[in-house]
């Protein structure tokens, strides 16, 4: 798979790069960002996947932490772009920019909107083949819809990720307006298919190895108040199934990158603990 480097900037002793490639799953050109810490020059490093908008790479201030802990941070795009599907640009919470990390089954989305497979299969294979990463040590985290993506990827693939964490994730999409809109569009009306991509439901049947989940949620987050995120449901399910979660409701913080920037160091340390063990 040919990778085209779009940009490269030195940061905290490492390199922040952006690449573009032709995606097989998504049938279009996809960009992703890769941060290579100084340690990557001399050896293989663990990989940490971040799911959210591309603004992450410049706005969230993760580079110092990633550099110190020696982690390669990979940030794919939120959805396929430029696929020329009718209606893809109509709303900001569906279609372009809002792939919801599912493999769509409905037309006209099913050809391109296969973000779940992209993130869990194609992208890791690409990264492992082209960058100095250790394929056995991988973790995932994300923000908002990306938080949802991180949680479902981890819960659907027990043992694949060493740790998972999220900022203001959409914990129970099946029950919130965003989720209902997206799932009905991508997956059709059969709600049983929706549950396969819902973190709260997945937890209830999670059989697998121990996960240690860290979630930060801004208390003043508008979407929390609007009932889009529904963390309580997730926590209740985890308590029931004894999945370890530490959920922190942060006073005064909202949904923005300022919130992410404040706590990103804690999250990276959380992942480093498992990736560098």
């Amino acid at each position, binding site marked *: 798979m040919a990778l085209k480097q779009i940009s490269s900037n030195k940061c905290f002793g490492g390199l922040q790069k952006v690449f573009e490639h032709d995606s097989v799953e998504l049938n279009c050109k996809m960009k992703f960002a890769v941060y290579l810490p100084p340690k990557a020059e001399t050896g293989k490093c663990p990989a940490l996947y971040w799911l959210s908008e591309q603004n992450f790479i410049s706005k969230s201030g993760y580079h110092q932490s990633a550099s110190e802990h020696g982690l390669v941070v990979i940030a794919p795009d939120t959805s396929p772009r430029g696929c020329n599907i009718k209606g893809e640009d109509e709303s900001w919470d569906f279609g372009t920019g809002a792939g919801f990390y599912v493999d769509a089954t409905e037309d006209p989305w099913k050809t391109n909107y296969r973000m779940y497979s992209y993130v869990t299969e194609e992208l890791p294979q690409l990264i492992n083949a082209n960058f100095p990463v250790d394929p056995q040590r991988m973790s995932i985290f994300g923000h908002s819809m990306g938080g949802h993506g991180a949680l479902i990827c981890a819960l659907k693939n027990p043992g694949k990720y060493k740790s998972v964490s999220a900022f203001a994730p959409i914990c129970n999409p099946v029950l919130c307006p965003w989720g209902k809109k997206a799932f009905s569009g991508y997956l059709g009306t059969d709600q049983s298919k929706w549950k396969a991509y819902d973190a709260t439901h997945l937890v209830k049947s999670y059989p697998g190895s121990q996960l240690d989940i860290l979630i930060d949620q801004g208390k003043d987050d508008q979407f929390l108040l609007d009932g889009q995120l529904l963390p309580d449901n997730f926590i209740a399910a985890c*308590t029931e199934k004894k*999945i*370890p*979660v*530490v959920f*922190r*409701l942060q006073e005064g913080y909202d949904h923005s990158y300022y919130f992410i920037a404040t706590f990103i160091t804690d999250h990276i*340390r959380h992942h480093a603990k498992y990736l560098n063990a």
Partner: protein
Amino acid sequence: MEEESGEELGLDRSTPKDFHFYHMDLYDSEDRLHLFPEENTRMRKVVQAEMANESRGAGDGKAQRDLQEEVDELVHLYGLEDDHELGDEFVDENIPRTGVSEYPPYMMKRRDPAREQRDWRLSGEAAEAEDLGFGGWGSAGQCQDLREAYRYTHGRASEEYECYVIPEEEDEEEAADVFCVTCKTPIRAFQKVFDEHKEHEVIPLNEALESAKDEIHKNMYKLEKQIIEMENFANHLEEVFITVEENFGKQEQNFESHYNEILETLAQKYEEKIQALGEKKKEKLEALYGQLVSCGENLDTCKELMETIEEMCHEEKVDFIKDAVAMADRLGKFLKTKTDVEISAQPEFEDQTLDFSDVEQLMGSINTIPATGSSVRVCWSLYSDDTVESYQLSYRPVQDSSPGTDQAEFTVTVKETYCSVTNLVPNTQYEFWVTAHNRAGPSPSSERAVYMTAPSPPIIKTKEIRSCEEAVLICWESGNLNPVDSYTVELTQAESPEASGVTESVVGIPTCESVVQLQPGRSYIIYVRALNMGGPSVRSEPATVHTIGSYFRLNKDTCHPWLTISEDGLTAVRSERRTPARELSPSDTHFTRCVAVMGNLIPVRGHHYWEVEVDEHLDYRVGVAFADVRKQEDLGANCLSWCMRHTFASSRHKYEFLHNRTTPDIRITVPPKKIGILLDYEHSKLSFFNVDLSQHLYTFSCQLHEFVHPCFSLEKPGCLKVHNGISMPKHVTFY
């Protein structure tokens, strides 16, 4: 200063053969400086340019031209006869200057190049002038002229060359206003734009100042601490000094008397042996003499017989035969008696050896009886050559007070000049006096000597030992009724007690407790001795310390009346019993409101880690607090305590992290059964972990200006158990 550097320069550099070094003193120092300030600049610039290997040909040429101009000036003004030569010499100066590269280290400094330059110029002159050496300048008068010439040029030069002065000089107006982090130097803002600072990180000077101040403040704290430590150490050293002197005095005295004793014993033995030898000699001689006498007698008898036989031979036959028979008998009898021709006494004597075994024993016995708490070895010597049959040693304890009660007096009779007195009371002063006895009666008593028995060994309070990875706090009971002078702590590493034989001692401890620095990850055996004038006590019973993790016990003195602490000080139990909700009187030491207990953590900074085992359904608070936290309040309700609180109600677990009554909003889905607590003084943090899951729960940032102690409280009946001596697990190290 210039002379020095001039000389230094001359001496340090490997002087090229052609250059003559001569004293710069010839030229007045003021002159020298004033001579070429601008010259300095120009020359230096040129020199630096050359150093930078930039062939600023133009500059060089310019310098040359300037110099030429100046020379021409001189020539013109003074009409020096050999001006041309002089000019040439000057011009030619430029050539040796390229030899600058031979002396790089000097060139980099500001003023040195100028001086070097001057050196060279002058030495160059000398070189040119060859064997003229010092006199290379020619007449003194010429020197004078030259100096004046230079002075004149200086006047001119300052006008001419002012504009050539590059602002590398210190310009006070343009102070640095930003700070280059990369080079760690203050620079002017515009310098950031070019030069080597182009790509570097730059911060405003104020910021740099602030951060520098912070650094300094941090270090100041460390310095203050060090000052205190050093002062303490100095005090200890003084005490040790005094102890050393005293011990030396004692040893000296002892050794002297023992040495004398040994000499006496040796002399005595010598006498005895000599006497024995003499007697042996007498014996031998007597035996030999006896032999000689009998030999003589034998000889006489033989001779007599011989004569008789000869006479017989001249007699008549009949008489001869009568006598011959009798003679034959006699002869036969005589010859039958054996003549002992064996020498009865050998002339050799056995080699006399002195038997040292008892001397050794004497020496040995002096050393093996240490000054113990209950015995003293007293030695004395005889003042004159009188005959003494025995000595009588008397002693009694010294009492400062109550002269009325006479202390019992004891007496021991000995033949030697020393005696070990036993069954004494430790840590007590006794006075001793000796009288010598012979047939005529007792002597007057000697002066009274005061000896002090060594103290009894202290008793280490093993239950109260607290330690961490870097130190241990030991306390003990004195073991003596009366005060002692000081205590000594001795420690050996447990792994190789005999092998290494190295015991560390801490001496001069004034109180019954001590904090001792240790290495992490080892086991130590600790003893304590008490010390007084009589010497050290025997070692106390040992105590073992492991420097893994931190050890502490729950302090019964702080615990709320409703809590019971186990014997080992690690479990706290709140029983089910119904207790009346009466108001407990406020106390400074016991918790009265919060049913809590405090642990005694060693007051050493660094980091400490311990674990608490709890029941899932238990309502508890675990955390830390300052020693003077108000015991009438709940843990976490004030700013002197921090804790993690768990309440279990309606099947729901609620977790709070309290300090000053506030808590963040945190939900934890899996209730921890074992909580790991990390106290980090260095980073001012207190962290809580779920040990079984290696899960981090929460971290407080807390200002710990004093030492804190672990605290535990039980809000409902139940029990919690503290686990100690655990080294920090890896997952904790990330925090």
